[in-house]
């Protein structure tokens, strides 16, 4: 059974058909890519899968459960972590709190614990802090744990998003243009991080990217979306040489 299965998903924004008859099946431990011109509907697909929008038509199954219509946070708690194309951090919270927050669904001390500060609560908060610090270590920003996110450089903010997404114990990680705003050097770093989390946690990863070097090196299979429809799917090699993809998306000369 695939980890995530999307069948015949279609979505309209008013009269605009943003996604049409989209299918996807991701196995445990795969890294998959989604590319396509701007406005093709890639981010929309992420939003549909994660429950931000509800698809007009289609089925989405995650870990054997149908998740269409579930609220975002329940889908996330099932093990689907994501990052956002335009950063969506919590302005007034520290880096550490960001990562702790994502463990919300794992908390079970309840309101009594929250109001009265029971032993159980203190225990759990402590454990959560430790786990959060480990994750920050993993993405290399432990030393910034107490800083507020607003003043951090863009690249660091991206890492916070990554650590935050990892804290929900994901089985599947959705990354929307994780390299945007990074220079090639940092891009290599990030690739390293992604490989590492992939290996450590055995996660599946599904990512949207415009930086071809990144996609081609990381992904096992890639889909190309144009006007909401998949025009090609295959290994990086196949995609790179697919004339339709070159015409609609890559162009002749590919820069990283």
């Amino acid at each position, binding site marked *: 059974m695939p980890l995530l299965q999307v069948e015949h998903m279609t979505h309209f924004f008013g009269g605009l058909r943003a996604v049409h008859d989209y299918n996807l099946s991701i196995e445990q431990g795969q890294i998959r890519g989604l590319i396509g011109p701007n406005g093709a509907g890639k*981010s929309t697909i992420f*939003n549909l899968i994660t429950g*931000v929008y509800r698809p007009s038509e289609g089925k989405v199954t995650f870990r054997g459960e149908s998740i269409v219509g579930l609220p975002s946070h329940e889908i996330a708690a099932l093990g689907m972590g994501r990052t*956002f*194309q*335009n950063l*969506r951090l919590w302005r007034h919270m520290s880096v550490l709190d960001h990562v702790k927050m994502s463990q919300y669904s794992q908390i079970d001390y309840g309101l009594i614990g929250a109001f009265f500060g029971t032993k159980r609560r203190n225990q759990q908060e402590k454990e959560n802090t430790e786990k959060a610090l480990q994750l920050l270590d993993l993405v290399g920003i432990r030393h910034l744990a107490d800083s507020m996110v607003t003043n951090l450089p863009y690249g660091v903010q991206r890492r916070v998003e990554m650590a935050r997404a990892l804290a929900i114990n994901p089985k599947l990680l959705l990354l929307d243009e994780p390299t945007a705003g990074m220079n090639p050097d940092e891009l290599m770093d990030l690739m390293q991080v992604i490989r590492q989390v992939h290996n450590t946690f055995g996660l599946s990863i599904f990512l949207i990217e415009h930086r071809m070097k990144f996609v081609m090196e990381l992904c096992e299979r890639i889909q190309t979306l144009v006007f909401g429809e998949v025009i090609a799917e295959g290994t990086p090699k196949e995609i790179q040489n697919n004339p339709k993809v070159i015409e609609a998306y890559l162009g002749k000369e590919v820069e990283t």
Partner: protein
Amino acid sequence: MGYFLQNIVNALQWGSFYALVAIGYSMVYGVLMLFNFAHGDVFMVGAYIGFFTASGLMALAAMGSIAIPGWLILILTLIIAMFLNSFVGMAVERIGYRPLRDAPRASAAITGLMIGIILETGNLALLGAQRRAFPPLIPPTVYKVGGVYITNQKIVIIVVALALTLALHQFVQHTKWGMAMRAMAYDFLVVPLMGIPINTIAALTFALGSALAAAAGVLYGVAYPVLGPYMGIIIGWKAFVAAILGGRGSILGAASAGFLLGFIEIFVTMIFPSTMRDFIAYTIILLILTFLPNGFFGEPYSAKLRL
């Protein structure tokens, strides 16, 4: 039937005031995304300016050789009060809002509230505790049309309210100044990058909003000729309700919500025991917003944020 029609006329007049104050509110709200809680009191100041202007003009007319007719005094009063009050608005912007431009909106709301209190108490301290009687610029003539009593005042008020609403709507939607105002509501930090002077736009917005408040104040003085320092509070808060019920920054929305509020209040009084008016009227509003979570013409809360 006459009873019903009479109440429609009543509601139209009452709604006109909510509408006029609400669009002034909505101007500032729509542009700077700020609650201008001083607006009700700016309205009060407008009414007072109107009072002094009108009294002065009437005194002039009384002693001078030239006979100025009442309607001319009204027009002059409207123009002068609108003009002068726009400076009050600009001063409010300068003192209470410009320094807080990148503060949380709620903080600016508090300064607005405080400026309002200063205007009220300032009035009380300077002009004393007595109420003022607005001079009768157009002596009321009562017409009886098929069991419905209408006065010339009512007609003037409703017509002016509608005209100002439409004019302002045109301005905000279709001129580049209007666009700049709306842009500023969204992200004022980049507005200068378009070569737009933000301080000018902000001042202009407050000036326009306050001019409208003055118009409302003068007409209010004509219809309800008792002025006091606290006259702006209730109408200000209710206009706040209307401005947002109409949808953020939408002039037509604010105006229609203003009229709607007038209609709700009048008709609730007509149908239910009048003691229950606020209870029922606000329950209706609460229900409207529960089912139309973005007001009438508004964008959803998160329109600004994109995934």
